[in-house]
């Protein structure tokens, strides 16, 4: 297996961060969680610091929401790969996220299979 994909998890709920990490680790050495952020601002800072391969981005957060964070990260690094994850189920939000620069979109709730499938797709596009 080549290099592990370095993942930055942005999520305001601790149990969700934990769950996402657990799910990613299920794939053995494919993904490596390099950091967590609990809001958009933090996410942007962490991105600049860690330069992860993938960002999973919750959209509804305090201080700076996910949409804004996606925009700023994409502005900083157009090659950034961002997976938007949210419980806001309407297509408008999905469109907003994609417009802002998210590469994929995942609705809550999701199973581990859902997550790994969408990440696979994201990586294939590389």
């Amino acid at each position: 297996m080549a290099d592990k994909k370095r993942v930055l998890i942005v999520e305001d709920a601790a149990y969700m961060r934990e769950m996402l990490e657990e799910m990613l680790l299920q794939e053995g050495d494919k993904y490596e969680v390099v950091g967590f952020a609990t809001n958009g601002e933090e996410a942007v800072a962490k991105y600049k610091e860690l330069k992860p391969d993938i960002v999973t981005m919750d959209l509804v957060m305090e201080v700076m929401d996910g949409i804004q964070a996606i925009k700023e990260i994409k502005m900083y690094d157009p090659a950034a790969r961002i997976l938007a994850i949210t419980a806001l189920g309407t297509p408008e939000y999905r469109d907003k996220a994609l417009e802002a620069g998210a590469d994929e979109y995942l609705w809550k709730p999701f199973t581990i299979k859902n997550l790994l499938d969408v990440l696979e797709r994201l990586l294939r596009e590389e």
Partner: protein
Amino acid sequence: MRTSSIVKGELLNYRFLMLVLLVLACVLLSFYFAYYRGETGVYTHVFYIPLILAGVWYKKKAVYLAILLGVIHVFTALIFIHPIPAELTVETFERTSMFVAVAYIIGFVSDKRAKVEEEITKERDKFQKILSTISETIFIVDRDLRVLELSKPELKAGIEGEEGIPGIYRRIPMSKYKKREEIIGEKCYKCFWGKEKVCDDCPIHSIFETGAGARMVRSFVLADGSVRCVEVEYVPIFDEGGNVVRVIGDMRDITEEKRMEYKLKRAEEQLRETKDYLDNIIESSADAIAVVDMDGIVRDWNKSAEEIMGYSAEEVIGTSNRKFFAKPEEADRIMEIVLREGALKNYRAIVLRKDGKAVHISMSAALLKDRNGVPIGTVRVSRDITKEVELEEKIKEERDNLNLILNSMQDGVYIVSEDYKVEFMNKILIDEFGNQVGNICYKAFHNREDPCPLCKNKRVMKGETVRWEWHSRRMNRTYDLIETPLRNINGSISKLTIFRDITERKMMEDELRETCKKLEELDKMKNAFLNVAYHEMRSPLAPIVGYASLLERCELPEKGRKYIYNIEKCGRQLEKMINRMLELARIDGKKIELTLSEFGIREAVNEVVKSLETEARAKKQEIHTIIPEITIQADKQKVIAIFSNLVSNAIKYTPEGGRIDIMAEEEGANIRVCVADTGVGIPEEHLPKIFERFYMVDTSLTRKSGGLGLGLSIVKEYVKLHGGRVWATSEVGKGSKFFFIIPKSQKEV
């Protein structure tokens, strides 16, 4: 006379030359006798020849010639006779004296005669002049109709022709002016009338026979085209024996007289015509015309009067006019007004016909006066206006009705003329503002000096109907005004305004608007709240489902695996329910657009059936599909949602072991779908409402089937979005059938 004017040097005058020659002859003769014969006596008689001639020609001047001849005679005797006998000398002087005496006498007589002749000529000329200056032309003809004398130097004559101006003149085109000299000796018919033979009406012959004078009128046209008319009076001239020898004609120009006569005649004719015309008018007038004298006695009564009143002229003329009036004193009143004002106009009265029937009349009358201005009666023209009066009454009645309506209206109605004068106000306005009819509207209603800034009068006068709302700040009320042009009978335009107090309505409208706004806000808030609520509800689901899926991967006993499965399943169910609510919230929040694509309807149904198979199988139900291979153009996700809702409903409400049929067929440009089940059915009274949101047939919490009652309302919305419709039929206990129709293609819609 000019012939004798020797002094004027007419030496070559033949008389004078002749005298000279004669004198010379006498001298030679005298020399001859004296020289050769010695005689002096005999030849001297020859000397009388020139002397007499000179006396006749030169009057008294002949004396000079006599002296000359005497001298010659004397000298001849003295020179040639020697010696001169004494008697010769005496004789010589004696003869010389004789010469002079004869010359003088002859000269004197000639002179006298010449003077008399001159006098006669003068008198004659004078007479001629007088004759020619008088306008009448006098001529004399003899028995042979020859003109012997004419008083004018020339005559305007013509040729008698055809009839000219009707009734008066005969046309006699004139040939030319004729000179007196040409006329005298000519036949009268030829020179006067240009005819070749005697005039048919010539009176001259009979005058010669009877001796009675005659008169005749002739007219003719002159060369310049003017028509003349002459009258000729013939008078006979008798000789001593009483026979007519000549006839004198006295011709007089009577053109002007004739012309006047003619004009007079025409004027008389015209007058007669006018009179006839007026008589006709009076007789044929549709109005009754009557003449009533100062005592009220009828003096004239025309045909229409007979018709209107039923009395004939014979019956009425000479009787009092009082009996005609329904109120006899009206007769006196009319007379009084006419006398006072000189006339009466459109006076209305009721008169009684002979048969007793009342007739409304409109009477105009004028005072008749004699030449001295003394009133002698009245002429009255009356018209039967019974019909008009009836019509007027009818109109009045209608108007009263109209007024009644206008006055009982709660809306204000008023009419204003072009110059802002109030012409009408209905009762409600009069009650509020007092009667302002005749006053200026802006003064009366608004206490202004100029028209109101918002006044629509000018626009309405142009024919426009204006509807507007006006808020009176003073009264704090709002009015709805309709202002419309009103065409009057005389062609002018007034403004009709109807206004209604809509203050209450306005307030209600405002309230309503306010409420609507609030509702809208509430709705927005609701949607926002729902969005948040769904987010918050879904968020905890994420770890439930997520961890469940993680747990599945762990080493677990069989029991644990089953629990986890149930957790995940319930989580998914909860998610689906939340999704539906979210879907509805979205439909509510704003218009949803269709995302169109082409797909096979069978493929879509299979997809739905596949996803619901597990549920159906759990209830041991069978799902049958009869779907033709039809490609439709629609929003696939929504079509799937429609089927999914209908089928899951069917599964939900059908007991175990039931059967579900899904059928589709083409129907023209549409596709018709039926989802039938063998379930509990829906009571009839619920059928119309099942597509309403949150509607549940069984609202008890203990009901068997879950759900929020949102599925069918989503179906209805989606079908509607596609331009289709949805309905259901059901039989309780046997099952329900849900139908929907959508167009195969959205392009045609």
